[in-house]
């Protein structure tokens, strides 16, 4: 063990109360960061999961409101790309939905080749029927519809038809649960005025949905179509989440600043208390760099202890909070607190703590290195 580290460890051990207070400040900052990152990460991940659940990762379109004709070859070409998990044609448009004889409501109709497969994770109730519509739970409730009952879809002035309700779904997203209905592709094409050879676009699902932005350019070059990623589509939601995350990060950084000031104060006081020892060591032949390292190491050691305590505290609290029921009515989509612990967040918390404690140690080290031997030894 280097001599300076040995001395630093002894100084810390010699003043346990002060050391615990200093390390405690770092621990609180680390714990706050771990908890904030864990919860915001969990919420963000949950939100993305929900958004991605029903959304195509990429949509290939001929243009705004332009039908895409002759899409079979494109389906094959896109499906061969190594990063593409699956691709399917879809149609989408506005319709009116209601019970026979009652006032209909506006909704979006989406037609997929097999909507049951796509909706499976979100189906709350479903019937055994092979034909019919899937309808968002909130919309169904507003219209008084339930599985097996009859719903009327109006696609145009002379284009209305009754369908049996095949199932209800809940995604947690208001736009879906209160305003979407799903039909098979053929039926939806008919209701929205598409020919059997036309679709609104191709829905592409990727192995890595978060890399959708990168693959959009490749598919645009391959197909010549307009490509829109799920991130483009939900820019506002994602931007809001990012702003919230950044705001919380500022609070976390403020916590680290307070912890750093705490460690810095304690180390700075330590330098002043140890002025005579510093002078003695200089007289015995200690170079300024070595003395500076003693105080720098104290910062690092206090930081390291703080990191360990902070990780235990933060992860422990996250473990206690994970899965706890949320009693916030606005958060309708998550009934339980989602928590996501990422290794990189823990490394970031540890790194930030080490930087703050190391910075405080450096400031103290600088002060120790500046002590003049005769002043501290002879005139003390």
């Amino acid at each position, binding site marked *: 063990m280097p001599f300076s580290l040995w001395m630093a460890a002894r100084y810390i051990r010699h003043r346990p109360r002060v050391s615990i207070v200093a390390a405690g400040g770092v621990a609180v900052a680390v714990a706050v960061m771990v908890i904030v990152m864990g919860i915001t990460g969990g919420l963000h991940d949950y939100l993305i999961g929900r958004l991605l659940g029903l959304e195509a990762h990429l949509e290939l379109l001929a243009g705004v409101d332009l039908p895409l004709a002759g899409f079979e070859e494109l389906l094959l070409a896109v499906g061969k790309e190594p990063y593409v998990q699956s691709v399917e044609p879809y149609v989408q448009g506005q319709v009116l939905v209601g019970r026979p004889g009652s006032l209909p409501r506006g909704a979006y109709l989406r037609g997929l080749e097999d909507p049951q497969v796509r909706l499976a994770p979100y189906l709350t109730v479903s019937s055994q029927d092979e034909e019919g519509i899937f309808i968002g739970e909130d919309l169904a409730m507003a219209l008084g519809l339930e599985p097996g009952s009859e719903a009327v879809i109006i696609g145009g002035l002379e284009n209305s038809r009754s369908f049996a309700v095949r199932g209800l779904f809940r995604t947690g997203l208001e736009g879906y649960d209160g305003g979407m209905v799903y039909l098979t592709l053929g039926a939806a094409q008919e209701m929205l005025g598409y020919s059997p050879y036309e679709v609104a676009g191709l829905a592409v699902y990727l192995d890595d949905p978060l890399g959708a932005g990168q693959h959009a350019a490749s598919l645009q070059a391959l197909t010549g179509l307009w490509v829109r990623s799920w991130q483009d589509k939900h820019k506002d939601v994602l931007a809001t989440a990012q702003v919230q995350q950044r705001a919380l990060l500022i609070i976390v950084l403020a916590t680290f600043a307070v912890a750093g000031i705490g460690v810095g104060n304690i180390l700075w006081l330590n330098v002043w208390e140890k002025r005579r020892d510093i002078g003695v060591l200089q007289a015995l*032949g200690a170079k300024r760099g070595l003395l500076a390292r003693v105080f720098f190491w104290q910062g690092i050691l206090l930081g390291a202890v703080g990191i360990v305590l902070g990780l235990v505290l933060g992860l422990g609290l996250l473990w206690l909070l994970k899965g706890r029921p949320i009693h916030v009515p606005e958060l309708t989509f998550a009934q339980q607190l989602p928590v996501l612990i990422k290794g990189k967040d823990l490394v970031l918390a540890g790194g930030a703590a080490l930087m703050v404690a190391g910075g405080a140690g450096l400031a103290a080290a600088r002060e120790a290195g500046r002590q003049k031997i005769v002043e501290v030894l002879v005139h003390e």
Partner: protein
Amino acid sequence: MNKAPVLELQQVHKLYQGRPPVHVLKGVDLALFPGELVGIVGVSGSGKSTLLNILGLLDGPTQGRLYIQGRDATGIAGDAAAAMRRRLFGFVFQDACLLPEFTLWENLIIPIHLAGRSPRADELAWARQLLHDLGLGELADRKPSEASGGERQRAALARALVGRPRILLADEPTGSLDEGSSHLLFSLLRESVEEEKMGAVVATHDVELARQYCHRLLSLSGGKLAGS
């Protein structure tokens, strides 16, 4: 006695700038030879500590020259001075100045660590022998606060000797000791100086003690050093 001085001052002045300025040393000449214990006596404020600080490269002279082992060391400061102190000097301070967080044994071997390496076996053996010779063998694991003033000062002497210095400087080493401990420390000091053939300067206000144990006694008064 070797004729070449291990430490030499030539016409050293020390002026502290202030209101008014204080001219502490006014042309001090001193030659210290190996195996010689020189006592410097003087009243409080006469400049004994200032002289020792200049001798030990803890402070620089305002004027004059300092030679260490024949080389001009005037103006050496900072890390270069620290390296020279570590290699050639041993210090004993008035109130021992041991580091309170460390045991007497750890205090003793700190100067070896300051060389930036772990102590060698022969150095540790020498340190143990010093502890034993100075009657501290049983106290090695005690903290300074658990030792008496005399024991602390003997530990400080052991610390000063552990690096086998060529020059030993002691500033009022018996200032806080009783008569018995003072005699013991001075006799150990003289014994060490003669055995290790180093040059030593002891600043003290106790003229009788200095006369009894020092090879040479000098008096510092009015900024001038004179034989007494």
